[in-house]
């Protein structure tokens, strides 16, 4: 059985630290969660929340951001739900990290950092909101019984 924790905050940048603290509070002492993994989780959640706050709720009243954390024996799942504008992840360009400073775009790292910090990223738009689901495995073994065969 997975342990489940939830935090809901209004979509303001002031809420970012609450989401990071929530991750720290519930994940810091888990077996398999190193300082590096904890930073990865906080970074992925911070970037996802920042995107929701600055893009998802752009030009509309800030709604809610819901973070659901599920703790499984060998993996964590983090689901971020919002009710703002959705987006198409595959349309988001990957930043050129080898570009020179003159050629470089300053932004566009948010989704890239998320993808580098967790093992799986899924995004779903339904009538119940937009949900980005992030999965982080805590061991090298990824043969969870619930995973579908490739």
């Amino acid at each position, binding site marked *: 059985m997975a342990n489940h924790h939830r935090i809901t905050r209004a979509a303001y940048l002031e809420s970012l630290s609450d989401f990071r603290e929530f991750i720290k509070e519930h994940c810091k002492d888990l077996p398999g969660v190193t*300082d590096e993994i904890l930073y990865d989780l906080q970074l992925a959640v*911070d970037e996802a929340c*920042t995107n929701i706050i600055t893009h998802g709720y752009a030009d509309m009243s800030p709604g809610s951001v819901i973070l659901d954390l599920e703790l499984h024996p060998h993996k964590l799942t983090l689901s971020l739900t919002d009710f703002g504008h959705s987006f198409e992840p595959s349309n988001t360009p990957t930043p050129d990290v080898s570009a020179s400073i003159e050629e470089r775009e*300053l932004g566009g790292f*948010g989704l890239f*950092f998320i993808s580098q910090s967790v093992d799986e990223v899924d995004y779903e738009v339904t009538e119940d909101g937009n949900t980005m689901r992030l999965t982080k495995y805590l061991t090298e073994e990824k043969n969870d019984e619930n995973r579908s065969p490739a």
Partner: protein
Amino acid sequence: MKTEVRHESDVTVVTVDGSVDALTAPDLARAIIDEIAEGRVDLVVDLTGVEFMSSAGLRTLLGAVKESRSHGGDLRIASTNPGVDKVLKMSGFHTIAKVFTSHSDAVASFGS
């Protein structure tokens, strides 16, 4: 996040403590840009007291490197937090700007 600015000979050191995220990064940008506007174009941003930095902080640093170089100076980093280092490395920042493990080494590099 707190920033403190001081001058060590010709180098401006901006010491940052706390978290640099989308909320706080604009304050860091302002602190750096104010110095460059005053003609202090050689800067060290000391991130050794930073516990968390997101892409918003990275964006600020990239912009600040560009700005200082466009005025004939440079911006160098001191960083020891492995998480902050990972953010810098993932973005290729190390290939663009110099990153040191102590602020004294970063300051001294301007004299060499």
